[in-house]
């Protein structure tokens, strides 16, 4: 099996679907001859022509709105928003239109489309090249929200998202694009949406996380193990619709839970996990759930390494719930 970076796995996923399904189109800003600012779409225009992979004018609202119309009329658009931070000009089209189309038309019209977008910190991009806005979308009924954390899942989840009958926000952890390598099967395969993955087994504490924070959790778990604490790391993979049973099972197994994300804390995704556990598994809990998150501030620049949760903060939380 070839070893690919997460970025190459995304590229491979796009090529694989485009070879199998002529209705799949890729478009956005700089995705054509340049191959995307991160090179996720490198080689697509070359292989599939400008009819199937092309640059658009600089308007996210235009990109997403047009994708909805294409999806309503028989195509499978995969739109790229260059940075998740720049998705907000398209927020109206996503929240008011794509998400509600099936419901408001009684199922007569649908928008089977994917919006791919790199998210997250770690590249010294400051306020507007670093955000983790998953909660805005996870709060929107009708969308699916998917975030891979490994090359294998990036390809399998992307193909599953493109084949899915509903609109998917596919957020790619840009901090892992080139730093994470892994085995990726050739050809087409899918990773089922709304299923979580146990990235590491452990009986003492469960850390729930997704995206770039999975590697941070694994690092902290490694250090905890040297101190005799066995930590399970659970990669949620799909935030909406969530694998609720999987979450509750994993929480019950240890009774001690840390929730980790780089997005701000208040109304962040961790609040949903905490509430789910409080509602359905409180009797299994040996300690209060602890959240490790970004600050409730805009994303900084020079101090980004202090803003983003790191293994030190995660380990501190693990020890806290373990010793509670």
């Amino acid at each position: 099996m070839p070893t690919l970076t997460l970025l190459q796995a995304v590229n491979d996923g796009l090529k694989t679907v485009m070879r199998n399904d002529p209705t799949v189109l890729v478009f956005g800003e700089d995705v054509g001859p340049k191959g995307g600012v991160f090179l996720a779409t490198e080689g697509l225009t070359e292989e599939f022509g400008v009819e199937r992979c092309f640059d658009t004018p600089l308007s996210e609202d235009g990109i997403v709105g047009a994708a909805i119309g294409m999806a309503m009329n028989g195509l499978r658009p995969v739109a790229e928003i260059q940075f998740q931070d720049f998705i907000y000009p398209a927020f109206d089209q996503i929240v008011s239109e794509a998400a509600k189309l099936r419901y408001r038309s009684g199922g007569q019209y649908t928008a089977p489309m994917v919006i791919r977008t790199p998210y997250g910190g770690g590249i010294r991009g400051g306020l507007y090249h670093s955000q983790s806005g998953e909660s805005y979308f996870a709060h929107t009924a009708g969308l699916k929200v998917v975030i891979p954390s490994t090359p294998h899942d990036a390809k399998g989840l992307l193909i599953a998202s493109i084949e899915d009958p509903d609109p998917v926000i596919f957020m790619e952890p840009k901090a892992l694009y080139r730093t994470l390598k892994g085995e990726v099967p050739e050809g087409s395969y899918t990773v089922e949406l709304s299923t979580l993955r146990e990235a590491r087994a452990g009986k003492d504490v469960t850390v729930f996380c997704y995206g770039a924070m999975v590697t941070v959790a694994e690092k902290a778990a490694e250090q905890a193990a040297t101190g005799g604490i066995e930590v399970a790391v659970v990669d949620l993979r799909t935030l909406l619709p969530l694998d609720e049973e999987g979450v509750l099972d994993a929480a019950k197994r240890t009774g001690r839970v840390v929730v980790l994300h780089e997005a701000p804390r208040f109304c962040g995704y961790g609040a949903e996990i905490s509430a789910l556990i409080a509602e359905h598994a409180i009797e299994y809990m040996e300690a209060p759930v602890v959240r490790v998150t970004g600050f409730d501030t805009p994303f900084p620049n020079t101090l980004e390494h202090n803003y983003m949760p790191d293994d030190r903060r995660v380990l501190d939380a693990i020890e806290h719930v373990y010793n509670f």
Partner: protein
Amino acid sequence: MTAELQHLAPDGSPRGDVPELEGTFLRELFVHMMRVRCTDERMLKLQRAGRIGFVGTAKGLEAAIIGSAAALQARDWLWSGLREGGAAVMRGLPLSEYVAQMYGNSHDTAKGRQMCNHFQHKASHYPSWSSVIGTQLVHGVGAAFASKLRGEDAVHAVYFGDGATSSNGFHSALNFAGVWRVPVVFVCIDNGWAISVASSQQTAARSYADKAAAYGMPGRDVDGNDVLACYQAAHEAIAAAREGGGPSLLVLKTYRMLGHSSSDDPTKYRDDDEVAAWAAKDPIDRYERYLVERGVLAGGERQAIEADLLRELDAVIHEEETVPPMPMRTLVEDVYAEVPPHLRRQFNSFIAVAERLGYARPGDGAFPL
């Protein structure tokens, strides 16, 4: 089709009614243009050495940026995008603050919070842009509304690129400005590219200037590599706006000579021939020939000016390089006027770990609760 306004041909020879400007002013313009180029050069060097993260250069755009902004008065506002830092320096931003912003150190007036090339200078009415293309256009319109309401005669020059003309902000800004007849000059720096997307793919219109008609304002094409044409066109548009004549759109046609930023490889998407054709129209070379011909500049003086500018830059870089970043507690400051209790608690639990593990610095200490 109206022709581009041009006063200097690429060989530096005068065209049409060349504006009558004093020698000292003409010379200053040249120095400001040279400073832009020298600054880019030094910043790129720092970026390659890993000292700063990112540079958005203005090579090729010096005439457009400096010529147009030179027509503004001190009380006027300049709403910037990625590449107008040189205009800020000309209008009063200290070079040390420019360099501090690139380092994001504790001399940076924005406290190191924004990525590189996001300058601000309140004293000369120069807010930084966010990074989100097109948003500042509408801010300029609202601020011009406020100036007009108070009966002040400040003009607001709003800068943006060819790519930004596709943003929602462009439409809203020109539409509102036209309806309100506010004192705004929209300065579109059409540098041929929005990262890898050619200007020709951004619009089906003949020129961005044609869009002005739809908003009920004049639009004008200008040779953006001709500093005198850029100055003259801006001068006329600013005067009209100041006298209550309403907004207008200038399109300064120029060319981004380098990549979109230090992270971009333009050879993947454009021809060397196109770049070479524009190099032959270089705004600094052209202006130098004109100034030498007029006797404002001596032949070979450019090298001396360049050496002075580089010396000045190197001294500033030397100073700023060792300035430390802001203390960690600035992470939670300036979110609101006061640091609210929940942010104090978040910071305090963070700093407790940092202190215990020894990576806190003096001045990082906890907030009183």
